[in-house]
């Protein structure tokens, strides 16, 4: 009796499974039409997708021009306090990310540009901009980036990012930014 019940339940399970399979089988057809509709799009996409896996990340990188790479801004800029050139705590994770990117692309050489806000004389700001570029370079060196991959330049206050004359603009303009000059 027990055996029979188990068998009976099994049969029901099998039947219901079959039924659900059937249902699924019935439900399956609807998805294909949308897939079929989307197919032309998928095919279009596939062509480049098929090519890309052939290239390694490195190869993709090497294919880009310096301009294209710089437009993607792989190296984020850092900011400084007024009349200061020490690396702020909030700049540390940025420089760490930049150094690991540089380690991933060991042939890349960069130019670090030091910039200042407008509140200061031309002479002093040119020196200060260089100090900012230099402390940025030294921090990257402390993270294991070789000095011969880094050049520095100071633009003083001559190239503000934000032309405004308030604290928000000044804070944005006191910066060190990175330009890839060789890959």
């Amino acid at each position, binding site marked *: 009796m027990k055996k029979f019940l188990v068998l009976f339940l099994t049969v029901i399970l099998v039947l219901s499974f079959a039924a659900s399979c059937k249902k699924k089988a019935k439900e399956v057809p609807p998805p294909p039409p949308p897939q079929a509709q989307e197919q032309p799009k998928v095919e279009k996409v596939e062509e480049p997708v098929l090519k890309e896996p052939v290239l390694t990340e490195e190869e993709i990188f090497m294919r880009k021009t310096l301009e294209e790479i710089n437009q993607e801004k792989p190296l984020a800029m850092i900011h400084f306090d007024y009349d200061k050139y020490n690396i702020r705590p909030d700049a540390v994770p940025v420089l760490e990310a930049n150094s690991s990117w540089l380690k991933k692309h060991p042939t890349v050489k960069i130019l670090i540009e030091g910039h200042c806000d407008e509140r200061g*004389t*031309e*002479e*002093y700001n*040119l*020196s200060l901009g260089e100090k900012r570029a230099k402390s940025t370079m030294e921090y990257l060196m402390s993270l294991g980036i070789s000095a011969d991959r880094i050049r520095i330049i100071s633009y003083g206050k001559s190239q503000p990012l934000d032309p405004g004359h308030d604290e928000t603009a000044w804070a944005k303009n006191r910066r060190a930014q990175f330009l890839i000059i060789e890959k």
Partner: protein
Amino acid sequence: MPREHLNYIRPLNPREIFFKDWESIQTRILVVGEISQSQNRIIFEVKVYDVKSERMILGKRYQAEPDVYRLVAHRVADELMKLYGEKPFFTSKIVFVSNRDGNDELYMMDYDGANQTRLTFNKWRDYMPAWSPDQRAIAFTSYRARNPDLYILYPYEGKLVPVSTRGTNFSGAFSPDGKKLAFCSTRDGNSEIYVANADGSNVRRITFNSAIDTAPSWSPTGREIAFTSDRTGTPQIYIMDAEGGNVRKVSFGGNYLDAPAWSPDGERIAFVSRVDNFFDLYILNLKTNKITKLTETKARNESPSWSPDGRHIIFSSNLSGSIQIYSVDYDASNLRCMTSQGENKLANWTN
């Protein structure tokens, strides 16, 4: 001299001057000018008399194309300046930086802002110019080789000589005798002051300090150099011997002082001081050790430079919104704007 005094003078005849008339109204020097024209050329004759002794002390005769009468008049005026032991003023030139044609380039103009002429032509920034005393050479910084390098431009010969091209190189300043060129460079890793021969050769370092040392300005004797240093934590004005020894701090009472400019008489140093977010010009009298404020504008006033006679100071200011070059007398009177096209700054007058 009151105008009505002229009523006591008989009409001036260059051939027969009534010196007693002039003496009666306490004239000491009489300048007589005569202009005539012959065959499309103007002839300008000037005679300067000492009234008391009735003697001619200077006589000059100029011939020129009619369109340069302005220059001729200024030449004469400068002869009078020289007569009184002063340096040429009216024929002196101001070199400055303007972005009126797109990017920062060097320009020059007359003492009064007339004849603004472009000197450099490229798409890179040229700035911080400084005249040699003979006004034949201009030291300046240019990014034309993708690095802030120091050059000497000979504008009348069209010659350009690189002086220092390692690190950041700027703040060129010729010595008053024209034999040396002081400048600032980071060629050895830190912002230091160097002195070279006027042609850029034989560069030697004169400051040795881990702080920022910048903005050299020669004393009129050439024996000392004023400069800016932040060795005490904030930028302050210092004086040292021209070889780099005997450094002493001369500024006080501020926490951001820069851009010293030594006056031609040697007694004063003009400089910039920041208070809150305003930059004003001040004058330190080295004899009395007193500081007076030259501008009071709630703006950014920068880069002071003295006229050759020490009576005027030119500087750049954003007083009107955009940055322009202004002139002011050393006693803070007669403030006037000299430029209007684009933005104009970093004016330098030889002295």
